């Protein structure tokens, strides 16, 4: 499969989540992911986009969210960028702690981590970018980067 780059920018509104999930699943299909892999990628991108809309843009509703899909020979990489101030992943309460099980929210990051092979963040003055990777090669990518 040849590499490729796809850019999608949506208004900061959950009404667009089905579209970004659909794009992610189609990118996964073109990359050669199986049914489970495509569903996992689509759901992870959906959750990441919800986070960008609801948390990154909490004080700026409607601001656009930009998604970059990168197809490489050994992985699919998705970058989800908002204009929010960022957050400290380590400061998010563990939703599986018995004390937190009754909380109605706070499970998104846990789901994302379980659905992709790698996760990272870039936090800068212009906003926050969540980086998700799904490997196409068993055991990890063939080379770094």
């Amino acid at each position, binding site marked *: 499969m040849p590499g490729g780059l796809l850019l999608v920018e949506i208004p900061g509104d959950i009404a667009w*989540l089905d579209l970004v999930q659909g794009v992610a699943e189609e990118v996964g299909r073109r990359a050669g992911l199986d049914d489970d892999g495509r569903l996992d990628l689509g759901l992870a991108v*959906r959750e990441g986009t*919800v986070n960008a809309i609801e948390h990154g843009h909490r004080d700026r509703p409607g601001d656009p969210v930009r998604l970059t899909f990168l197809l490489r020979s050994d992985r699919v990489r998705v970058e989800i960028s908002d204009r929010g101030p960022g957050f400290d992943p380590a400061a998010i309460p563990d939703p*599986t702690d018995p004390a937190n*099980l009754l909380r109605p929210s706070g*499970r998104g990051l846990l*789901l994302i981590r379980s659905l992709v092979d790698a996760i990272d963040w870039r936090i800068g003055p212009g906003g926050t970018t969540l980086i998700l990777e799904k490997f196409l090669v068993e055991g990890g990518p063939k080379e770094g980067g």
Partner: protein
Amino acid sequence: MTPVDVEARADGVIVLAPAGRLTIGPGLAELGDAVASACRRPRPRVVVDLAAVTYVDSAALGELVAARRRVAAAGGAFALARPRGKVRDLLDLTRLHELLTIRDSLGEASRSVLAAS
């Protein structure tokens, strides 16, 4: 997702059956409304049948937690029936199987809420 199917059974159990993808948006709000409606009854006994749900997102998991709390506050009992595949995986991952009553059949789930009331 398709609309939530609501069945008020003769034994008093209210079965709510969403279908397809249960994710943040109007469909999830419909499930919340159905739970709220069930809670207008005294001691509601509510089962959410997940057999036709293909996957859930974190908002849906949160809605199930909120539903359990709402039913308990009304003096009732709440259970999930027949989560499958990815849905079951995510309930286990988030350890909600430790909080929520989950049964592999609709009959078992119904009996559990009747026994608890």
